[in-house]
């Protein structure tokens, strides 16, 4: 018996209705027939009109009428009525458990002053059980009227009965209230415990103090909470057409328990969750029988916090070049060990200086031991021409997040503020990278941006720097075929073809035909995993007689 989840998303999440995942047992996987559609067969210029999935595998497709001799009684048929079907989407970079925990946290991204933060917390505390932890996330004090984080006294005032923990956007700074400070038992001699004029802790935590608190809190999160949070994220991903995601779990800024949770539950999830263990411990990964190591192993930081490592200083801080968190020999040793162990490696590198460090490591390992590999660089936002060519020569896959450009890539946006008017024009150069032969896998970096491949496709096509935009077909590949390639799964997934798995997404319109400006309005109608309908957007559904 196969257990899977069925998403009954009446009106869909996008329409604000509450979607419910109910699980049930299905004795046998029925055949699934899609008819009257525009079915995207990647290698064929002509679209198929029908497609049959048997035992979870695509067994045939074709044009015109479905030949009746292939039908059987148990067959489930969806009349696509001209809707567009393609391979199920991938999200190549998700922090699954963190996204789940954050989904259950108080969002402070919109708060523009301490007063607003306190109001939000106060309102949240009214319904929170006394003593339960209030986790606030996403506060950007730089954008607030006061330009600072709240103090523990302010947090005490608005939530006297609950421990409160407020995180800055990138989680490197946090503030706790008195009750939380009391419960955490942070040693007073730890680095990063901020103090007030009375030399008492003011609740502000950075560096080791923040790491101490973060670890203790994340470790204390109940498995049930993780389960609920992850279920929410998966539900949302499914409603966005995702059938495979790459979960980057454990390690710095995250939590070993997250990794263990995904490892323990990945088989029970309704979509494929490919785990990347964020550790340098090659033996550990091998002993667990995993094929991949790394993910968001921070070789450098981010542009937002001016920690992405650059060769030239930041435009808005001429003394700042960002940070390399590893010595060259450490990265080299790690890459060589993981490469020789036959693992797939993924490393986070955003700035050109960090990208250089990673490419050098890959060059050494691959030169010493040439073998087939699918090593990756995550983000790869600011690679120079030479680095692009060297990465292409090495066969490195780049895992990128097109939505970043829509968030920060516009004139006057964060990229321009940090990098200046010339350099900001050279971030996320999708079309250039493709021209040089790099395979780009698309992702969201959830929860930095939401899991939503259609939004990613829209961002890649409508790149703020037009010369680096790609066509819709190339953008679609980023979230399907290329992403499957980035996992070494292109033979089984990533496109619709005979013998491949029945992972399918149905969209209301054809992204390859609509205008660039209309991509943003595309909707997912069905998500199908191994021939099972796991999401049906009934609000926009195809009417009676379907599914």
């Amino acid at each position, binding site marked *: 018996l196969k257990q899977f989840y069925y998403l009954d998303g009446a009106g869909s999440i996008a329409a604000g209705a509450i979607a419910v995942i109910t699980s049930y047992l299905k004795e046998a996987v029925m055949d699934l027939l899609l008819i009257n559609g525009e079915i995207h067969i990647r290698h064929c210029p002509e679209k198929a009109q029908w497609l049959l999935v048997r035992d979870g595998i695509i067994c045939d497709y074709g044009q015109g009428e479905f030949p009746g001799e292939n039908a059987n009684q148990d067959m489930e048929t969806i009349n696509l009525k001209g809707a567009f079907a393609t391979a199920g989407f991938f999200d190549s970079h998700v922090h699954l458990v963190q996204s789940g925990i954050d989904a259950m946290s108080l969002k402070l991204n919109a708060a523009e002053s301490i007063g607003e933060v306190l109001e939000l917390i106060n309102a949240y505390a009214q319904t929170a059980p006394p003593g339960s932890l209030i986790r606030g996330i996403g506060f950007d004090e730089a954008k607030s009227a006061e330009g600072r984080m709240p103090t523990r006294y302010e947090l005490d005032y608005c939530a006297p009965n609950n421990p409160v923990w407020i995180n800055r956007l990138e989680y490197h700074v946090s503030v706790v209230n008195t009750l939380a400070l009391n419960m955490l038992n942070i040693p007073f001699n730890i680095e990063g415990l901020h103090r007030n004029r009375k030399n008492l802790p003011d609740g502000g935590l950075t560096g080791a103090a923040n790491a101490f608190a973060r670890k203790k809190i994340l470790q204390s999160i109940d498995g049930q909470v993780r389960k609920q949070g992850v279920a929410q994220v998966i539900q949302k991903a499914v409603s966005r057409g995702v059938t495979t995601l790459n979960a980057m779990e454990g390690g710095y800024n995250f939590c070993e328990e997250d990794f263990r949770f995904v490892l323990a539950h990945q088989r029970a999830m309704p979509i494929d969750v490919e785990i990347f263990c964020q550790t340098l411990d090659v033996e550990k990964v091998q002993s667990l029988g995993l094929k991949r190591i790394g993910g968001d192993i921070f070789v450098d930081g981010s542009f937002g916090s001016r920690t992405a490592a650059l060769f030239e200083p930041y435009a808005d801080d001429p003394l700042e070049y960002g940070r390399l*968190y590893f010595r060259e020999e450490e990265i080299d040793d790690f890459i060589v060990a993981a490469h020789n162990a036959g693992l797939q490696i993924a490393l986070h590198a955003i700035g050109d200086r960090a990208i250089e460090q990673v490419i050098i490591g890959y060059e050494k390992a691959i030169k010493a031991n040439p073998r087939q590999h699918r090593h990756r660089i995550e983000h790869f936002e600011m690679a120079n021409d030479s680095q692009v060519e060297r990465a292409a020569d090495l066969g490195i896959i780049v895992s990128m997040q097109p939505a970043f450009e829509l968030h920060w890539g516009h004139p006057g946006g964060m990229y321009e503020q940090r990098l200046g008017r010339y350099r900001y024009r050279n971030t996320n150069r999708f079309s250039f990278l493709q021209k040089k032969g790099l395979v780009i896998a698309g992702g969201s970096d959830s929860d930095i941006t939401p899991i939503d491949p259609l939004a990613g496709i829209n961002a890649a096509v409508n790149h703020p720097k037009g010369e680096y935009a790609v066509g819709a077909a190339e953008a679609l590949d980023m979230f399907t075929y290329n992403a499957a390639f980035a996992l070494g799964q292109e033979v089984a997934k990533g496109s619709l073809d005979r013998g491949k798995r029945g992972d399918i997404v149905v969209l209301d319109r054809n992204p390859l035909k609509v205008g660039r400006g209309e991509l943003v309005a595309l909707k997912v109608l069905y998500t199908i995993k191994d021939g099972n309908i796991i999401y049906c957007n009934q609000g926009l559904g195809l009417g009676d007689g379907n599914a």
Partner: protein
Amino acid sequence: MAMLEIFAFGGLTIRLNGEDITERLPAKAAALLVFMARESGRLLAKEKLISYLWEDSDLQAARYNLRHTLWIVKKILADVDDEILHVAKDFCGIVALDTVYTDFGDFAQSHANIQENEAEQLEKLKALYRGDFLDGVYLRKCVEFNDWIFYERESFQEKYFDVLHRLKDYYFATGNYLKRIELLTEMLQINPLKEDLYIEQIRTYIMLEDWEKAHAKYMACTDMLRNELNESPGDVLTEIGQRIKARKRIVPLRERRQIVMHLASYPGPEYLLPAHVAEVVLDELSLREKTECEGILNDFACLTARWQPRCPISFRPEDVRLYSSIFESLVFLSKRATIQLLVENVEALDARSAEFLAFLEHRTRACDSIEVRCS
């Protein structure tokens, strides 16, 4: 006479004549009692107590609340003894000192009176501190009181760390390395993000020649740095790591050759014994070993510099460095040989040589391959 006992380390327990009365006291009454006990022997202004515990009430209500709380405390205590708490018009406090015991008072007094080289006293202090001061105690809307807890907690924690540091240095100087490792482990449980504590632990394992554990601790430290702080190991840790990785295979004990040093003593110049041992060791070491050994000695000199000021033995710092260096070179040599030091005519040893002998006897206690015998 009634006995009031307050235990505030690791939580709060209040006993009266052995009976636990914590649950009978409302939270603010218990807080008031602890606050007064911390200031025992002094009368406290009621206004101050109000500002600590009823700051959100208007003055009249706050006065009433204090009066009522004091009445509750007095009532519970008066069942046994009316003399513990003294309440006047504007002041109140605990004045009958001989009837009140507090673990924090005991700790503070014992810490103030601590003498060098008093391991027993240090162990008593360590046992007294069962956890943070008033751990888990929090009064809502009592900012001043909660801040007072943090202030006191930090002050006690600082003293506790001082006790742990002194103890680990004591056990180091007296050669009880396993005890030192145990203490370092306790310290790391409190703050697992301290690279220097890991380094001390690794070095201690190296001194014990337990390379496996030294390596395991090194890995634990580098994992901690990467996973919690995303930092590379510092230069010192990196150098230690290289030393661990590059270490020569240790010859099994049964396969080592035996070196017997006959060390005769006679009236003469000072430092005779250390000089003699050093001479034999240098004769035994190969040129390459000497080069490697030099590294160890330099390294060890840095380490000893940290604990010398607290060294409980009456050695002069330069002597400690000398003796330690010789001992370390003996340890180095013992990787490939078992060493027997036969000291003859001990009563004739000069003062410094006698000190060195005492030092060696302490330090070689944990070494299987070095034996000191006297006649």
